[in-house]
């Protein structure tokens, strides 16, 4: 296990935990950006350069700010009166723990069962943007078009949903 991996893992998990545990919602949002940054670094570590930069650009650049805007627009920044956690938070926690147990067990199980180089990575693939471009335009052109459509629809949908109705409609 290389040092970089441990470092990054610690950073991301800490970011994730903070995003979930912190009282102040804006702090949660910022912790979330830290987690996103950690993940981006993971991607770079895994030689997925394009994915890493895309992750930074999309998540840190857009989603984080979106979350922050949402928090400000819904006056979330003041600490809520009746506690931060929902009533039966313990059950939620237990279920999450259960899920983690199952996933962890499955991962460990597969490590043993899967033959072959499950553990060791292959040679670093030389992934250039040109290849990604060709792939996007070649094999994945349909998903690309559909995602384009989806994004436009989401854009318009989000605007309409969140639009400030005219006074009359209140």
């Amino acid at each position: 296990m290389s040092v970089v991996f441990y470092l990054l893992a610690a950073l991301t998990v800490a970011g994730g935990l903070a995003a979930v545990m912190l009282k102040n919602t804006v702090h949660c949002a910022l912790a979330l950006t830290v987690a996103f940054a950690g993940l981006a670094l993971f991607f770079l570590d895994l030689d997925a350069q394009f994915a890493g930069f895309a992750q930074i650009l999309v998540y840190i650049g857009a989603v984080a700010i979106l979350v922050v805007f949402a928090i400000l627009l819904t006056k979330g920044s003041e600490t809520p009166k009746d506690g931060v956690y929902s009533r039966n938070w313990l059950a939620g926690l237990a279920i999450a723990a259960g899920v983690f147990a199952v996933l962890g067990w499955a991962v460990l199980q597969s490590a043993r069962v899967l033959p072959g180089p499950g553990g060791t990575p292959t040679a670093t693939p030389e992934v250039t943007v040109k290849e990604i471009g060709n792939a996007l335009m070649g094999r994945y052109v349909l998903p690309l078009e559909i995602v384009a459509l989806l994004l436009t629809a989401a854009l318009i949908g989000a605007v309409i949903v969140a639009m400030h109705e005219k006074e009359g409609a209140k």
Partner: protein
Amino acid sequence: MQETISFTPQLAASPITGILWLIPAVPIVASGVIALLKQPKRKTAAALAIGSLSFSLLLSLVAFAHVVAGWAHGVASRETVNFTWIQVGTANVDLGWVLDPLAAVMLVMVAFVGLLIFIYSVGYMAEDENFTRFFCFMSLFAGAMLGVVLANSLLLLFIFWELVGLTSYLLIGFWYQKPAAAAAAKKAFLTTKVGDVFFLLGMVWLFAQTGTLLFYNGGAGSMEAGALAGLLKQPAALGLTAAGAIGLLIFCGAAGKSGQFPLHVWLPDAMEGPTPVSALIHAATMVAAGVYLIARVYPLMQAGALAGGTTTALTVVTWVGAFTAVFAALIAVAQNDIKRILAYSTVSQLGYMMAGLGMGGVAVGMFHLITHGFFKALLFLGAGSVIHGCHEEQDIRRMGGLRADMPLTFLTYAIGMLALCGFPLLFSRFWSKDGILEAAQHWSVAKTPFYLLVFGALLTAFYMTRQVGYVFFGYWRGKKPAHESPAVITVPLAILAFFAMALGLIGTPAWPWFRAFLDGRAVGFDWHGFAEPGLAGLMATSTLVVFLGLWLGWRLYGGQAPTPEEPDVLEKAAPVAWGWLRDRLYVDELYGVTVIAFYWWWARVADWLDRRVWGGVVAGVAWAFRGWAQLNQFLDNNVVDGSFDKGCDELASGGGLLAAVQTGRVQTYLRILALSVVALAAILIWSSLP
């Protein structure tokens, strides 16, 4: 006697034959237009009808001239235009029309007489408020009649034949308010229909055998040698050949329409219709259609006849014809209604024509048909003028002495009467009757028809003089004094009178133009015609007979016709016979007892059958279904509902539990989701444990 005539059929149809179909088409279209007109549109209706028929007459004359021209050049032309009407699988039903001397003559006769009667009826029907409807039916009839004449296919002929039957029903029952007229129309229609059924049978059989209904089709027609040979080979029942049997079946149809013996009952009752109707339909044309049909189908009837001999079919025709002639003449003697006498006279003359056809061949029968058409139309129109004059009085015992009041009608009526009796030399029936009698003389089978026909001629002369005596001589016995009919009525009478005399000349033995024309042979005028053996004797006997009849009639009824209350002279002489004759020899009653009784009985049986048997079956089925329905209901209520409803209740209560889960809070759903993931994964792992 009659020889088989060979025609050199011209295959290519000349232009005139091409447009021949217009002759029947125009009057029919005219009748359609008139039908659409409103009732007060009298002038247009009359103009349309007369216009269309005159156009047909014009076209018929052109066709007649064309045929005559062809005949003059020595070639007897028969032009046919055939076309496929329906394609049924491989067999196709062809129709078509033909132009040959027989058709040409009939065309002219029907069109000309029809036109005169149309003009006459403009005057006669003037006050009748259903004027337009009358002309609509009349022009439809004229079109149909011309169609019958032109048809080259038995099927097309049958179609027009039915149309003619329909129009006769419509016209007889024209004054449908009168129950008698309605009953007469129904009677006419049904009796002719009986004949038509046999006609249809014959037609179907012919089609089955020869595969075509076309008369002449360039060698392949049913009347041509090829088909006839085929027909001869099949033996039919009663020793008849197929050709003979089909011929007889078709003759039954003709008998129905032409009022021959068994099916003649409708014709006298048909006098209920207006007089022009009687004139046109029941004198000149429609009844003649039957005779024309036999003439058209003659090769079929004659097939297999040995040289000079006749076939059984023709003998049957002759016997029926001869018997009807005498039978009808006898009844005519005892009738008191002016139109009924003429009706029976028509039946008897038709019997003559049938006999003529049977014995003497097409030319003899047709010549008598043409001459009869003219003078009988004249007589009917004359009677119509008399009735019109005597303010709708039809009983001859209430007329009398009209000689002075209606001179013109009397003159034309007298000419018609003399023509009918066959007054020698000048009048047409003398020559046509002689033709028939000559044929009867030479008839190889038996002599009795000859004597019957001679006796019939005597009776004809007698009852006509009786009728004239009652109507025109003696003194006026009616209520209101009669008055002469207007010009529009008397002019056609005059024209018809002229033709009644003139037509006889084209058939004299010296100059047998008509027979030659029909046979397509050349003709020359030579007096030796009279020198034929036995002809002189025949003419002598027939003139003798006519004079005898006239003298008898004049002696009994000439001067002082008895008052309406007094019994008839003859009645005094033979009251029982007179009673029989007056009641038409109880033929109607005979039918009433037999045929109609049978139908009544059969109707009751059918009703019983329907009510009891079928009713029972239906009731049984209904009962079964009701029982089944009750069983269903029982099952449904107890078994199905019971179990199903209970099941639903359980489910509903179970549903309640599940509903509790739907708290509406997103996180509960998420928790359930996660829990199920965990559970599934656990199962997966548990199952994959080695």
